[in-house]
C-alpha cells in the first residue's frame, strides 16, 4: 500500500493567488496577517463543523453498537436482506467521487477553472449515481417487501440462497435493525444530496468567474465536506452489509 509519499512529489507548482487591479492580493481580509493564516482559519473552521458532524453520526453509530452487542443474532439475520454487491458498488462510486473531488480542488488550486468545474460535474454525477443505486435498487424494494419500520412492517427471514422463510428472530428487534439502517443511510443520503447542491452552486459561481471563488478555498472546503461524507460510508458499508453469520 502506498501509505508513504515521496517528498519530491509534494512540491512542484504553486497555488495561484488572485490579485486586484492594484496588484494587491484579493480576498486577504485585514484581520489576517497573511494568506496562510487566513487559509488555516478557513480550514479549522470547516473542521470545527466536521467535529459536530462526527459526533452527530457518532451517536447513531453508538446506538448501532449498543444494540448489536445486545442482539447479535438479529443483526446477522436481518442483514441478509441487504445486498452486499450493491453496497460494494456504491462504495466504489463514492471512493471514485472523492478522487474526482480531490482533483477538482487541485485544478482550482493551480487556477484551471474549467477543469475544476469538469471534475466537480463528474463528482456530482457519481453522487447522483450513488443516490439512484441507494433509492431505486435498495430502498424501494425494501419498501415493497414491507421492511420499512412502521405500521406495515412485516418481517421474514431469508435463506442464504434468497428464499423467504418464517422469521428466525423477533420481528420487533429486526424492525430496530431496519430503523437504524434507514436512519443512518438516510442521513448519509441527505448529506450526499447537500454535497450535490453545494458543488452545483460552486460550479455556477466558477462558470461565471465570480470573485468569491477566484481563490480556491471555497472548493477546498466543499472538498473537505465531501471526503467526510465518504468516510461515513466507509464505516456504514462493513457495519450494515458485511455482518457475519
Amino acid at each position, binding site marked *: 500500500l502506498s501509505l508513504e509519499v515521496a517528498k519530491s512529489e509534494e512540491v512542484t507548482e504553486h497555488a495561484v493567488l488572485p490579485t486586484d487591479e492594484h496588484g494587491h492580493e484579493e480576498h486577504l481580509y485585514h484581520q489576517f496577517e497573511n494568506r496562510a493564516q487566513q487559509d*488555516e482559519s478557513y480550514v*479549522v473552521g470547516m473542521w470545527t463543523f*466536521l467535529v459536530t458532524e462526527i459526533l452527530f453520526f457518532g451517536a447513531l453509530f453508538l446506538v448501532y453498537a449498543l444494540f448489536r452487542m445486545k442482539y447479535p443474532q438479529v443483526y446477522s439475520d436481518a442483514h441478509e436482506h441487504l445486498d452486499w454487491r450493491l453496497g460494494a458498488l456504491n462504495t466504489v462510486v463514492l471512493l471514485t467521487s472523492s478522487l474526482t473531488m480531490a482533483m477538482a480542488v487541485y485544478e482550482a488550486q493551480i487556477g484551471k477553472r474549467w477543469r475544476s468545474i469538469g471534475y466537480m460535474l463528474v463528482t456530482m454525477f457519481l453522487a447522483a449515481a450513488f443516490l439512484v443505486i441507494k433509492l431505486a435498487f435498495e430502498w424501494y424494494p425494501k419498501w415493497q417487501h414491507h421492511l420499512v419500520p412502521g405500521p406495515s412492517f412485516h418481517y421474514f427471514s431469508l435463506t442464504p440462497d434468497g428464499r423467504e422463510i418464517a422469521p428466525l428472530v423477533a420481528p420487533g428487534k429486526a424492525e430496530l435493525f431496519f430503523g437504524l439502517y434507514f436512519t443512518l443511510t438516510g442521513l448519509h443520503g441527505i448529506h450526499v444530496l447537500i454535497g450535490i447542491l453545494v458543488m452545483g452552486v460552486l460550479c455556477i459561481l466558477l462558470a461565471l468567474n465570480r470573485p468569491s471563488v477566484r481563490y480556491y478555498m471555497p472548493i477546498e472546503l466543499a472538498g473537505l465536506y465531501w*471526503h467526510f461524507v465518504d468516510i461515513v460510508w466507509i464505516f456504514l458499508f462493513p457495519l450494515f452489509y458485511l455482518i*457475519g453469520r
Partner: protein
Amino acid sequence: MTTHAETHAPVQPVVYLRTYGALLVLMALTVVVWYVPNHTGTGHINQALALSMAMLIAIIKALLVILFFMQVKYSSKLTWLWAGLGFMWLLFMSGIIMDYVSRNFRMPDGRPF
C-alpha cells in the same frame, strides 16, 4: 506538517491516485475477509475477530482519506488538533455508553458485578 501556518504547494494528482488505489484494495480486502468465511464454507471465524478486522480496515481507509484527500498530512498543527478532536470526543462518548453496557455485566457465578 508545518509548525505554523504556511501555504503548502498543491498536492500532486499522483498522491490522490495512489490513495484511491489503496482505498480500492482495502475495500476489496474487507469484502474478501467477510465473504470467504461466510459464503465459501471454508471454516468459521470468530465474530468479534471478524468485526475487529472490518473496523481496522475501515479506520485505515478513513485515515488515508483524512491524511491525503483532506490534506491533513500537509496542514498546520492546529488543523491536526482539530481533525483529531472530533474523534477524541467520539471516544469520550463511547466511554459514556460503556457505562450503560456495563450495567448488564455479571460475575462468573451470575451475581451482579
